């Protein structure tokens, strides 16, 4: 009944077999003598041999490496030639690539020479050297001597690949006697078309066997759910495997080439940075001061991003400021308090420093000390207890336009005819022999055009309850004095 196919001419059988794979052909050779004859025919194996291989070994100028009888091409059978193409890689493209065929499938395989890879620091002889090894396919291989940053990249044009094929790139290497430093340091490997994101994962180049079971946390989380937690699920490819030729290889990923994708397939092997994540940096910065944060922004781009993040500046902004500007009734300085939500916390912070707002029904002016983020106040003159204040002949209330922005409502007090305020006692003592402007407690000119005089220091630890009080009294009663305007008493942190 089955005899029909046996009667097919050998040529037809060969044509059919040539559409299968080399592996199928070898199996089909066992069917019958006719099949064997067909399956071993040049017609079939010529079909399996990529034309690039034939042109590479015929063109003597292309640097075919396996010297073994490239001249005998014409005399040996195509099947022998195919097997040679599988077992004896040849050098092509001026020695940049090693080229052979995958025996079962006949697909094209390549190894990119180390010289063709982009190896960071490879031109520095202290870090990387070029040596010859008898067991290598290329005249030179790269030896890692000592390097603090490990990075290797390689590319191959997709036009060289066999279509409809899933390719798996491997990094081929072997450890030397002095090998160390890869045990705890994962490397990230990436495979993909140049310019695309590619797929990446983390592997270890360390060869210790215990590695094998350690990395399944890198795999998708569902693997846990299958109850394999104590068993390494498919750990293939996350640590190096021993090859038949004595080298080790580590899988870099997978790439399916359909035949249409143009460009280069690129592969990279990079050390994984052990840098702190931005979140941790931001957490640390939020424990420093605004001044530190601004300086730390200059460390690196990650630091800058962390140092300018809302998380950090939110930490620096006193909650009282936020509630003061959100409560509209509290007399927030008119300047765009509505934009609070849209601006960054850092912008808000800077506004809090540069634009004091009135709080407590205008009794206090409130702002934030820029370098430290500490709260600062100025007590309005109306809130000060001033002797004789109720006597208009002695004290008056006036309005001045040069008040800081948004504070036009503030009232200032004018000493028409009152006693000169007494400066702190220390001041007085020193003043006795030395003019105050030279040392001690001079009157200082402020940026806003007013004058100020330091009244003393007070350290607030956080537990002290009660009021901080300040007094300015004349030492001796006596002569009449006049002509000063008092804006208020300002309280701000001591400059470091």
């Amino acid at each position, binding site marked *: 009944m089955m005899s029909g196919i046996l009667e097919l001419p050998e040529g037809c059988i060969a044509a059919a077999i040539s559409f299968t794979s080399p592996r199928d052909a070898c199996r089909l050779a066992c069917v019958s003598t006719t099949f064997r004859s067909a399956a071993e025919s040049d017609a079939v194996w010529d079909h399996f041999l990529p034309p690039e291989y034939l042109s590479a070994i015929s063109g003597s100028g292309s640097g075919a490496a396996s010297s073994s009888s490239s001249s005998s091409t014409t005399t040996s059978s195509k099947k022998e030639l195919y097997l040679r193409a599988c077992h004896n890689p040849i050098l092509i493209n001026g020695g940049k690539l090693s080229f052979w065929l995958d025996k079962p499938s006949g697909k094209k395989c390549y190894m990119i020479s180390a010289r063709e890879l982009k190896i960071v620091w490879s031109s520095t002889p202290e870090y990387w050297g070029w040596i010859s090894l008898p067991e290598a396919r290329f005249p030179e291989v790269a030896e890692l001597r000592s390097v603090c940053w490990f990075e290797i990249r390689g590319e191959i044009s997709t036009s060289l690949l066999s279509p409809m094929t899933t390719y798996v790139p491997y990094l081929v290497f072997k450890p030397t006697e002095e090998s160390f430093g890869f*045990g*705890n340091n*994962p490397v990230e490997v990436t495979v993909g078309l140049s310019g695309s994101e590619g797929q990446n994962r983390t592997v270890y180049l360390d060869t*210790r066997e*215990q*590695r094998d*079971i*350690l*990395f*399944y*946390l*890198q795999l998708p989380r569902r693997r*846990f*759910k299958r*109850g394999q*937690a*104590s068993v390494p699920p498919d750990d293939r490819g996350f640590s190096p495997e021993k090859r038949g030729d004595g080298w080790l290889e580590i899988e870099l990923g997978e790439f399916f080439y359909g035949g249409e994708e143009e460009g280069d397939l690129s592969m990279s092997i990079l050390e994984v940075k*052990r*840098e*702190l*994540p931005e*979140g*941790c*940096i931001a*957490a*640390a*910065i*939020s*424990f*420093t*001061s605004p*001044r*530190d*944060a*601004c*300086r*730390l*922004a*200059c*460390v*690196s*781009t*990650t*630091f*800058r991003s962390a140092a300018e993040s809302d998380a950090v500046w939110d930490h620096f902004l006193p909650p009282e400021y936020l509630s003061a500007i959100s409560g509209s009734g509290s007399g927030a300085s008119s300047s765009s308090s509505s934009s609070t939500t849209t601006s960054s916390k850092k912008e808000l912070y800077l506004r809090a420093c540069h634009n004091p707002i009135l709080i407590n029904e205008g009794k206090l002016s409130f702002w934030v000390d*820029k*370098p430290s983020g500490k709260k600062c106040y100025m007590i309005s003159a109306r809130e000060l207890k001033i002797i004789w204040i109720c006597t208009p002949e002695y004290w008056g209330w006036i309005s001045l336009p040069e008040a800081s922005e948004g504070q036009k409502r503030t009232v200032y007090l004018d000493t028409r005819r009152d006693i000169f305020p007494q400066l702190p006692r220390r001041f007085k003592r020193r003043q006795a022999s030395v003019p105050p402007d030279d040392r001690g407690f001079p009157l200082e000119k402020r940026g806003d055009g007013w004058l100020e005089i330091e009244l003393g220091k007070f350290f607030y630890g956080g537990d002290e309850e009660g009021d901080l009080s300040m007094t300015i009294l004349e030492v001796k009663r006596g002569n009449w004095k006049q002509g000063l305007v008092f804006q208020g008493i300002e309280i701000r942190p001591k400059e*470091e």
Partner: protein
Amino acid sequence: MSSSIASSSSSSSSSSKKEKKISLKTSDGEVFEVEEPVAMQLEIVRSFFADNEDVTEQTVMPLPNVSTAAMHGILEYCRAHEEFRRRMPEAAPEEEVRAFEAGYVDRKSNEELKEMILAANYLNISKLLDFLTGVAAKRIENKSVEYVRAFFGVENDFTPEEEANLRREYEWAFEGVDED
């Protein structure tokens, strides 16, 4: 004080047969047998066991991002806090906690501190992470940019122009920093 620690630790060791231990494996392959309440301070461990009903006591949980050295430091901290909690469940003895934390961190180099922050972040121990970032903050306060780069092993990835512009923008933050 020391007697109370000794007695409680001896009582805990006598009851250790009943006490559940959890096996954690670090990146370099060392397995730590950790008392359950201590291990549960590691959020990643807690959620692993909460999410996976089929894991057993024999399960060894791998922690590929944590080195053995960092693990020792982390367990020292978590065990101390578990001990404080056990002795005073209501409120931690603040002074003792502060004394422990001060001594604990004094012995850590900058590199160790960084490794510990990475590990605490990965293991998701918020209390320890807060503490360690606070310590890191103290060590970089008022320090030069160059010092901080060396401290964290950070590469300067600004272009010279970018860095110059930034330094100009933040000029006021550079006055009077500590000598390196």
